[in-house]
């Protein structure tokens, strides 16, 4: 290290426009930037696709099977006669839909239970804490398999989402509980309490703005978990096998030997799209995590 003996520069505070600040922020938090970019790309792909595809071609037997990509079928067709471009455009969102249903229900439940636990305290809190601990220790996927196996092929997209939600609430509940408890100790809440205001209302009003990025991150990672579960169930043949979902594609692709038949496009479409989804969700979630509690400022 050498030290310049230059004259002392006065501290400056450059003015920055909002856009530049946002761009600068993405530079420091590239996960969020890239994740959102992937999301926008997916939306554009879907919108463009919606003008071009006929939803019916996403079902088995709608077109000629086992066709490699061509001008007519740009992503090719699978062994059962689905147009893979149609599946890509529609199925990606069906897959995400399950994820969002599960995550939203799970989060709602989690926020409610976490808040109740902290609010009521006492034995309610004690019991809920144990329940949360138990649910966090049980690998939900194993129970999901049992549930789905019993319900057989009778589960709809929404139903799958709801079942998955049963195992997504514990994490958010634990976070919300500890956040409420710590907010409660903060000065402004204590002050408000002294002033005779209802502390829980304050916490509620303070909590959610404060927790929003955090809950956002949790929500997205819950979506990720749900997409994983639903794809996993599909692979085991426990998903909804009629609808053109990505997981369903995986199931047929593996059970019908797409690999050994050399039908690379059939392999590639669901795998690439699912990878896209997982990476996108992962990046957005960890980007929002960073937004919620920034690490110490890094270099410059």
């Amino acid at each position: 290290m050498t030290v310049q003996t230059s004259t002392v520069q006065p501290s400056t505070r450059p003015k920055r426009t909002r856009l530049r600040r946002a761009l600068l922020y993405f530079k420091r938090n590239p996960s969020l930037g890239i994740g959102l970019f992937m999301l926008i790309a997916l939306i554009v792909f879907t919108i463009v696709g919606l003008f071009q595809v006929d939803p019916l071609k996403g079902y088995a037997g709608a077109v000629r099977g086992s066709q490699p990509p061509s001008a007519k079928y740009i992503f090719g067709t699978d062994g059962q006669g689905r147009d893979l471009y149609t599946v890509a455009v529609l199925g990606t969102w069906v897959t995400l839909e399950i994820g969002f249903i599960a995550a939203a229900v799970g989060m709602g439940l989690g926020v409610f239970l976490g808040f109740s636990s902290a609010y009521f305290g006492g034995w309610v809190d004690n019991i809920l804490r144990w329940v949360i601990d138990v649910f966090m220790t049980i690998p939900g996927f194993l129970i999901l398999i049992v549930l789905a196996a019993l319900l057989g092929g009778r589960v709809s997209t929404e139903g799958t989402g709801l079942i998955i939600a049963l195992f997504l609430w514990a994490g958010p509940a634990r976070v919300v509980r500890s956040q409420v408890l710590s907010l409660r100790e903060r000065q402004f809440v204590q002050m408000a309490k002294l002033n005779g205001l209802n502390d829980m209302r304050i916490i509620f009003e303070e909590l959610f703005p404060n927790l929003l990025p955090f809950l956002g991150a949790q929500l997205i990672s819950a979506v990720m978990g749900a997409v994983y579960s639903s794809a996993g169930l599909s692979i085991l043949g426990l998903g909804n096998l009629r609808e053109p979902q990505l997981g369903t594609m995986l199931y047929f692709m593996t059970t019908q030997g797409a690999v050994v038949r050399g039908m690379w496009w059939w392999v590639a479409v669901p795998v690439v799209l699912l990878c896209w989804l997982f990476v996108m969700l992962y990046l957005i979630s960890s980007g929002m995590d960073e937004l919620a509690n920034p690490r110490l400022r890094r270099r410059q």
Partner: protein
Amino acid sequence: MKLKGFWGFFGRRFLLFILVVWSAVTINFIVPRLAPGNPIRQAIITRYGLTADQSVVNSLVIYYEGYFGLNDPLYVQYFRFLKNTFSGDLGFSITAYPRYVSDMILEKILWTLQLVLPATLIASVIGSLLGAIFAFPRIPKAINLVVPLLILFSAIPAFLAAIALIYVFAYKLDLFPLVGAYDPTFVPHIIPISQWASLPNYLHGPTFQQILKHSILPIAALAVVQLGGWALGMRGMMVTIQGEDYMTFAEAKGLTDGRMFSYTVRNALLPQITGFGLALSGALMGGILVESIFGYPGIGGLINGAIAAKDYPVIYANSLILITMLAGVTFVLDLIYPLIDPRISYSEK
């Protein structure tokens, strides 16, 4: 002094373990009762049809009606279920009658562990090593280019990695077999462990070779997706440690970079152990799916087959045993961690 509060800690953890197992059992008791009809009887009839040997069907139906005691009041059924489960009686398989479910699982679980454990061990060692290297002082910044790759790996589920690996290494390059645990024509050496179950003889050279050859791709799929998590976790922990007061003081003591690095690694490595339970659980879930993609004869293959055949007892029992196993691992890790890490004591919290 170290053991202060041990029994309280032990008690709480053990209670959690018991509660987890009990919840799993209870869920397994409730769920079939919520499903419409009598799924067991249904499954038995579907499996054997009306044409099959009716004596088998009848004995199964009678056995299971006894086992579940479907005509007794619910609480009687429930306690009988608990008693049976905790005494280790998980019932007969429907499709492989008269094999015991527990025998089938015992036989398969070794295959699964043989994928999951090496994968987790390899990933944790290599990943932690990578993570530590990232935090080495004055490392060339170029190494940071590896980070996006690791992030990519840690976001992708093992079953997708498995498909990609099969396509490239088994189909395109033809370096590894596509499916199974042995070549189709190979007759493995096996050691019977009971009338209905047997294990491969690892000491028999050709058998071992076959197993190894067929295990490499699934292990790779399970390991590669964990690698990023371990590496990023270790790097994060290294950075946290580097910001601790004691590292500032260590630097003020005039220690060498190498010594500072070893201090950081020692402090960062121990908390990684706590990640082991979670990683194992993730790898096991991933393993179930990877096995069904590779047609591998472990727990995943068993579950897959049981699902196709609607062999519910096998599915329940698998879920129950895996949950118990994982909860047990978590319990043991929780218990021994404070012994390993002088920073943590039992009396905390």
